[in-house]
């Protein structure tokens, strides 16, 4: 065995490793490493260091970096080591360099030369080492330096070289797709390589390629299917077997590829059904790896064109996953369910209880996955429960990253499915209160928009109810400390716009509250700005209504203070307010019309009110105006400027020749295409020539109108305007335009689902009334009505079934057990599946593996034997380490018998593969329970002790066999 031979390391190195191994704390470890850095700095610079010694220094440097300290002083020595002739030293050098340097490091240039040389080496191991380095160190600029050699190596006689060469190309593709664009055919070619390793590796780049462009690879469907078939039929060398599965990792990758290729393609999917069905049948559902392949099958089935038989298979596997005791399988089951409900939503219903169990589970990972599933299956009937749950969870966690995500999901669901205005406002309040600073500012704008527009029904009373309830709830909440800034902005805006509209609250009450807000958040300029503008609106509405304006003293002092503010924005707002309240009522009304945030601002671009003035000027002899595009000299100027902006943004030199100055028409088009960005069109121009080109340059503008400038106003109008919801356009148009219409301020990340779900949501909203009572009842029994009564019995009955497994969470359950006995019994039935072999098997694997009686195994029971072998290998992670030791010693004793038994077993089950199968198993067993198990360990232990490494009490595990 290699390890004993490799102990030729110096005492110094062993001591270092030992002291690191026994360090009690991070601080102690840091001290050791800092000391080591000092030593290395001295030593590594000495002249004439023997090569083996140098290798050790390099590895010590690796340790230094691995433990979080800077080892840059030694990088150059690692680089030098790559020049060495000895393979081991060279490879160590390359390893260190790949660990130390990123691809843009200055030292890389010193290595490219060595890599080039090594790629030509006669020794294929040297070539492999160089190719490893290529995959890590070559950046876009240095690709051309090695590309020809890498391509040449694709035809190397050694399969290991071909494999690494294809991965090097893969890496080039990742870095710069254009650099290998002409070599794509090589990937297809290598798929047919004689060596399964090369074929398997080639699947990685092909997967990436297919992800980006499915349609160019449809011709490969047949090849992939036939490869998968061969793999599943065990045609690959048995060294690829893993736990009696034939090359599972290759199967998984192939299934991923098929999922891409078959998506939305009935013809391609047709050719996949047989092989996927075969895998469903063949997979060993007792091993982790078997389940991994099954899971991938489900992913594939739910992605390709649906096939009823396969969907059934998938649903069976999912229900087995969900019923399992293993949390890992439950997790996979929930994920798979989330994929499958897209195709067959009805299957969610049979797993309601399992889903609720997972939701109640103390395991955070499982909980999050379940929320993901709930998010996918939200509809208007269950939105209240789901969102409430999400918010509760959101409040309970500290992880900002996830809090943000779940907050935006809550908002999204609430917007789509809100059953009532009141609920919507309350929900948004909660989200903002607890995650306000984390949510995207767009969400806040969206909320304001919704309050202003209502939900799109042409029902003004509903809209005003929404506003009143918003105002009321905000006035209620406004006094609370520590409200997030974003939320306060919303509150101020809404109070300003609608605070006094329904007459419930007096202007002085509202303005008082607004002043309080401004005062309480004196260092938040944005909030203050919102507050001042709100004040201005309220005073304006008051004046317009003809009421006498009496300004509260605190308002006056606030405005005075702000008019001397350091913020020019606040100053301006304060002065504007003062200016407005000094005007007469009529003027104020036209400046600040009430509830006009949704109204279109009409701009007459021909500026007719200036006509008289222009006329007079012309009469006085002024020059008539010449539009910009007719002044030919100007055209080129603006043209160049645009080019400059293009170049400025990419920061690279342009090598192609300058373009010829475009004809005037083109110059008019280019600013148009900029219009989608932040840039404004410089000068309004006559629109007649543009109409022609606009169609070509902005497709999205097609349906919105002929005038370019008008177009952008439309954008504004639709963002705020009412008609967008009632128009039929959104459902008919594609997602881009819809996003523009409805979702200008939607969250970006969810764009796709969002726009898709939106269609559904509006439909379902209208259809809400028509949902059958039966379905409603079902939904109610899942999540609905009062969520508490529903969920508690579930966990209660669960408690009965599972006895002790969830003891912690059920404490609050007891009082609710009697609620709805009907449901409870129903659940009990579903919770107690027929005690089939499968469940037994799983229980043995995870729970009581160590207690398996070796004599029972000798009786030749087929299932338990398999279970033990699984227990040994599959469940290692799940059981405790000492258990593994115990368990493996149990297994080790009856080893010879077991081997025979496996032979028998395989002989029975698979006549053709008899010898292969039996052989692998035996080999496999002997290898993981190497015969003289304790002796081997003891020897190693003694050897290390000899060298002065003794396990201290601090870390006695250093010698513990990992595999038991």
């Amino acid at each position, binding site marked *: 065995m290699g390890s004993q031979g490799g102990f030729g390391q110096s005492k110094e190195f062993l001591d270092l490793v030992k002291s690191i191994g026994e360090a009690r704390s991070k601080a102690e470890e840091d001290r050791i490493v800092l000391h080591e850095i000092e030593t290395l700095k001295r030593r590594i610079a000495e002249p004439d260091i023997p090569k083996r010694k140098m290798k050790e220094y390099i590895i010590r440097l690796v340790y230094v970096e691995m433990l979080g300290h800077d080892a840059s002083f030694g990088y150059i020595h690692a680089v030098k080591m790559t020049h060495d002739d000895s393979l081991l030293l060279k490879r160590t050098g390359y390893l260190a360099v790949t660990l130390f340097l990123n691809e843009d490091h200055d030292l890389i240039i010193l290595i490219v030369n060595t890599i080039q040389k090594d790629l030509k080496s006669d020794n294929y191991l040297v070539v492999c080492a160089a190719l490893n380095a290529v995959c890590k160190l070559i950046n876009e600029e240095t690709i051309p330096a090695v590309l020809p050699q890498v391509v040449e190596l694709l035809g190397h006689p050694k399969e290991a070289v071909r494999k690494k060469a294809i991965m090097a190309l893969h890496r080039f593709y990742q870095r710069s797709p254009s650099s290998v664009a002409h070599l794509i055919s090589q990937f297809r070619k290598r798929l047919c390589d004689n060596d399964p390793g090369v074929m398997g590796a080639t699947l990685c780049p092909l997967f990436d390629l297919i992800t980006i462009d499915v349609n160019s690879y449809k011709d490969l469907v047949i090849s992939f299917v036939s490869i998968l078939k061969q793999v599943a039929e065990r045609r690959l060398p048995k060294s690829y077997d893993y736990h009696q599965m034939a090359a599972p990792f290759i199967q998984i990758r192939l299934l991923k590829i098929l999922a891409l290729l078959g998506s939305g393609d009935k013809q391609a999917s047709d050719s996949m059904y047989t092989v996927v069905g075969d895998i469903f049948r063949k997979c060993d559902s007792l091993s982790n790896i078997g389940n991994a392949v099954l899971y991938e099958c489900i992913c594939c089935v739910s992605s390709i064109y649906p096939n009823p038989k396969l969907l059934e298979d998938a649903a069976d596997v999912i229900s087995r996953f969900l019923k399992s005791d293993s949390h890992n399988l439950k997790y996979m089951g929930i994920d798979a369910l989330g994929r499958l409900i897209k195709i067959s939503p009805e299957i969610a219903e049979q797993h309601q209880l399992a889903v609720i169990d997972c939701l109640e589970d103390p395991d955070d990972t499982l909980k999050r996955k379940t929320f993901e599933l709930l998010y996918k299956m939200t509809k208007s009937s269950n939105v209240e429960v789901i969102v409430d749950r999400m918010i509760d969870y959101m409040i309970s966690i500290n992880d900002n990253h996830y809090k943000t995500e779940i907050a935006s999901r809550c908002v999204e669901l609430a917007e789509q499915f809100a059953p009532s205005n009141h609920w919507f406002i309350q929900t948004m309040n909660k989200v903002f209160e607890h995650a306000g600073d984390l949510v995207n500012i767009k969400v806040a704008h969206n909320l304001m928009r919704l309050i202003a527009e209502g939900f799109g029904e042409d029902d003004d009373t509903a809209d005003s109810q929404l506003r009143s309830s918003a105002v009321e709830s905000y006035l209620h909440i406004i006094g609370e400390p520590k409200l997030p800034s974003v939320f306060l902005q919303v509150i101020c805006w809404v109070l300003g716009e609608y605070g006094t509209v329904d007459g419930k609250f007096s202007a002085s009450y509202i303005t008082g509250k607004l002043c309080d807000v401004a005062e309480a958040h004196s260092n938040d300029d944005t909030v203050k700005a919102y507050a001042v503008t709100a004040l201005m609106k309220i005073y304006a509405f008051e004046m317009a209504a003809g009421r006498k304006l009496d300004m509260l003293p605190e308002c006056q002092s606030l405005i005075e203070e702000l008019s001397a503010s350091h913020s020019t924005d606040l100053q301006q707002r304060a002065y504007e307010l003062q200016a407005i309240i000094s005007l007469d009522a009529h003027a104020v009304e036209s400046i600040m019309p009430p509830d006009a945030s949704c109204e279109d601002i009409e701009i007459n671009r021909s500026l007719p009110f200036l006509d008289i003035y222009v006329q007079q000027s012309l009469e006085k002899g002024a020059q008539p105006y010449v539009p910009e595009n007719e002044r030919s000299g100007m055209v080129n100027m603006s043209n160049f400027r645009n080019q400059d902006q293009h170049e400025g943004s990419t920061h690279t030199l342009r090598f192609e020749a300058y373009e010829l100055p475009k004809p005037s028409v083109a110059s008019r088009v280019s600013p148009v295409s900029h219009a989608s960005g932040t840039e404004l069109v410089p000068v309004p121009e006559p629109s007649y020539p543009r109409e022609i080109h606009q169609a070509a340059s902005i497709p999205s503008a097609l349906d919105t109108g002929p005038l370019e400038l008008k177009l952008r106003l439309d954008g504004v109008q639709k963002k705020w305007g009412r008609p967008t919801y009632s128009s039929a356009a959104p459902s008919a148009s594609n997602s881009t335009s819809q996003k523009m219409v409805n979702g200008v301020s939607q969250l970006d990340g969810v764009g796709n689902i969002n726009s898709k779900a939106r269609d559904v949501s509006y439909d379902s909203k209208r259809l809400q009334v028509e949902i059958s009572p039966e379905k409603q009842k079902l939904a109610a029994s899942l999540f609905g009505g009062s969520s508490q009564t529903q969920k508690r019995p579930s966990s209660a009955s669960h408690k009965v079934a599972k006895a002790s497994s969830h003891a912690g969470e059920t404490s609050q359950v007891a009082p609710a057990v009697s609620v709805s006995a009907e449901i409870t019994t129903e659940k009990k039935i579903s919770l107690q599946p027929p005690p089939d072999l499968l469940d037994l098997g799983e229980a043995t694997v995870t729970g009581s593996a160590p207690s398996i009686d070796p004599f029972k195994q000798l009786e030749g029971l087929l299932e338990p034997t398999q279970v033990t072998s699984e227990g040994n290998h599959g469940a290692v992670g799940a059981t405790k*380490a000492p258990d593994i030791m115990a368990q493996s010693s149990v297994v080790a004793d009856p080893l010879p018998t077991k081997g025979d038994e496996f032979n028998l077993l395989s002989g029975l089950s698979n006549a053709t593969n008899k010898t292969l199968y039996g052989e692998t198993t035996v080999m496999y067993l002997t290898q993981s329970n190497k015969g003289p198990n304790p002796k081997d360990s003891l020897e190693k232990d003694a050897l290390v002790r000899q060298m002065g490494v003794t396990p201290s009490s601090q870390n006695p595990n250093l010698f513990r066999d990992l595999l038991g």
Partner: protein
Amino acid sequence: MGIRFILMVNKQGQTRLAQYYEYLTLEERRALEGEIVRKCLARNEQQCSFVEHRNYKIVYRRYASLFFLVGVDNDENELAILEFIHLLVETMDRHFGNVCELDIMFHLEKAHFMLEEMVMNGCIVETSKSNILSPIQLMDKTS
């Protein structure tokens, strides 16, 4: 690119091997390792072997005193990664014979060599133990 990093960390949270398939600065690595290890070590045996952390999903598995943590993209098959870890351990076990934490510490470069054979560009490229180990054995013989 499925796998983003592979870490081996002992029960005390000390790093025993770290391999990243995307570039992170030393500080970023330190912070990331700290957070992840804290998260994973706090979990018990019954809980899933998967943890979400920022944009990563961590699949982890414990062997005696050593935790193997693999950071993957969101669309990776978690169970398969879990078995990949086991394959790695089995491979090391075949090479070292009853592999233990100390073997990895004394032969850090060999553990890395094995990973180099198994994973490239964040993809699993080789799963045959004999293919993984043969270059390393050849190298041992020649030097």
